């Protein structure tokens, strides 16, 4: 492979990885934006999404829908609804009662939810890796020695579409406007007659559904699921959200894509093993935060007392 081909190949690899990070980062960012909570359970929602879609896909595999693209789209749709509702339930049970409590209590509650989710998944799967069987093949396009499977290409497109829909939802609808307004001043919104509880629940629904879709895409792409699979990506996605400017929707997408690209090019630096790619990407991220502490798209915010 020539240098050019390596760059193109890595660009695609980085885009795919980055869109996973971006989808998960969106949920972190939205939830933080609206109730100032670092939702630790978010990474486990990603894992639950993976497993939920696997059960659905296995079920559809036996019917006329099959486990090809049609089955994947149908399962993805249902998974996003089911897991989105799970997100709403989690918010109602674990976060809403603590909304006026000190922020640390909320954080501990989120940690608790995270543990409940991944420990339950561990019990159900007895801690084993589960193969993610789909009807997809490894066929793809090759340009020179650059090789991209159809699956990879479609997943990148799907992620971009989801992000676009979200962007339109946030900027063009009343619900989106309400979300943005609540993130600025919750009490004022209540006084203006916005149903704050409903909008917060909706935010959780959308954020979790996106993470669930990312979990499913990861299953389709990597071919296996594990109860702890959310851990690493959770940390990375959270980082992506911070880099882009936490609470800012386009920032999460940008941060995710950037982290994905940094990682995929970091591996290619000569004489540095793949084990060092995280070190490389995090050094750059630290540099960004030193020069722009609010993140790439972050605005300066005066502390409200």
């Amino acid at each position: 492979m020539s240098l050019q081909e390596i760059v193109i190949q890595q660009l695609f690899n980085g885009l795919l990885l980055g869109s996973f990070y971006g989808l998960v980062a969106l949920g972190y960012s939205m939830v933080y934006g609206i109730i100032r909570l670092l939702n630790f359970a978010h990474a486990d929602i990603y894992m639950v999404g993976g497993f939920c879609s696997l059960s659905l896909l296995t079920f559809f595999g036996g019917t006329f829908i099959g486990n090809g693209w049609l089955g994947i789209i149908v399962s993805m749709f249902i998974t996003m609804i089911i897991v989105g509702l799970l997100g709403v339930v989690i918010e109602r049970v674990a976060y809403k009662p603590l909304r006026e409590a000190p922020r640390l209590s909320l954080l501990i509650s989120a940690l608790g939810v995270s543990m409940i989710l991944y420990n339950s998944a561990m019990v159900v799967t007895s801690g084993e890796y589960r193969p993610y069987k789909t009807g997809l093949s490894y066929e793809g396009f090759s340009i020179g020695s650059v090789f991209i499977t159809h699956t990879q290409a479609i997943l990148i497109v799907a992620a971009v579409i989801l992000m676009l829909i979200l962007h339109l939802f946030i900027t063009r609808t009343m619900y989106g406007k309400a979300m943005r307004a609540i993130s600025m001043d919750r009490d004022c919104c209540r006084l203006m007659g916005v149903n704050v509880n409903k909008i917060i629940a909706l935010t959780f629904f959308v954020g979790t559904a996106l993470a669930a879709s990312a979990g499913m895409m990861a299953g389709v792409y990597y071919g296996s699921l594990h109860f702890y699979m959310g851990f690493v990506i959770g940390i990375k996605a959270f980082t992506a959200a911070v880099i882009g400017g936490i609470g800012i929707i386009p920032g999460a997408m940008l941060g995710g894509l950037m982290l994905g690209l940094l990682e995929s090019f970091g591996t290619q630096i000569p004489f540095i093993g793949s084990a060092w790619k995280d070190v490389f990407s995090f050094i750059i991220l630290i540099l960004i935060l030193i020069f722009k502490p609010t993140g790439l798209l972050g605005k300066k915010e005066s502390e409200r007392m």
Partner: protein
Amino acid sequence: MAKRLWILAFAVVLIASGVFGCSPTPPAGDEEKPDGAEAPQFDGEILVGIMVPVTGSEATYGQDMENAMKIAADEINAAGGILGKELKFTLGDDGCDPQMCTAAASKLVSSEVVAVLGGYCSGATIPALKIYGDAKVPFIITAANSTELIKENPGWAFMINSPGYHQADAAANCFERLDVSKLAFVHQGDGFSENLAELTRDEWLSRGHEVVAYDVVNKGEQDFSSLVTKIRSSGAEGVYWTAYHADGAMLIMQLRQGGYTGEITVADGSSSVQLLEIAGAAGEGVYCTSPPVVDYLPAAQRFISAYNTKHNQEPGPYAGLAYDGTYLLADAIERAGSTDPDAIRDALAATENFETLCATITFTPENVLEKSNFMILKGEGGKWTLIE
């Protein structure tokens, strides 16, 4: 009143557990000889110690080994025993713990065993080497294979499982058979997989071939796409994965997804069938260097069915070697012509091309297998099949 009820309930539970839970299992001997009437007449007995963990985290493997040795002993006794004497066992539980191992070894020595079979955990086998050496008890180590054992051996222990460096050899042979010259190594940075990758790399270079990539992936990482690009751009014709099956399966899938078409071989940490289950179509044609597991050995089918009938389960990964060790000992005592420890040791050392299920046994001067017993498996139709 309520308190009394509690006490009563407690007493009932205690009695029940006494009756059902802790009731001693009936002595195995009763059911072992349905054909007791035609059992051969023995001229005394030969007492052999079994040292395996039957409690603790490794208990399942220890139990498998003990079961396999007993099956071998039953067959040997049914064929007339050793030197006309009956082969009998006494158990010492090492619990995979160095301290328990010392106690177990002392117990076996004081019950005056002729020889000892077993040794599963290397850490819980090393302390026994000196005890058996001092007491002049020949010791056949049927599973443990750390190179430390070779260093600490005072000369009375014999290892019938290949030490780790034999795997490097097996892997190099495998790739040479596949006509590969440029090799990429991927490990996971833990002691085991890194050590194996290093050994194999050195072996590969010393055979005059080329190593084009040597890389490590982090545990828990899902995305290997960049590594795949690196391997493809290095022009590697073969990839050797030295770590474990779950991540190995993902690497294999991503290699194939990324358009890599060369050979892939995985090491024993990935020999689980789960690797093929997860990898699916990508697992077809993947090779594996694996220690001898009876499931894949055609010669062992009789042993497997004997094990299934008797214990109603599959023999574990080390059962075959335990069975082999018992036969090796019986053969050595026959050749020694007596139960004199020096004679048995010399006979063991002089073992030449002794055919067993898992390997052909000839010992080096260090009492280690001369030839590797690692097998080469190939993934075909979602199952491993024996190639070599």
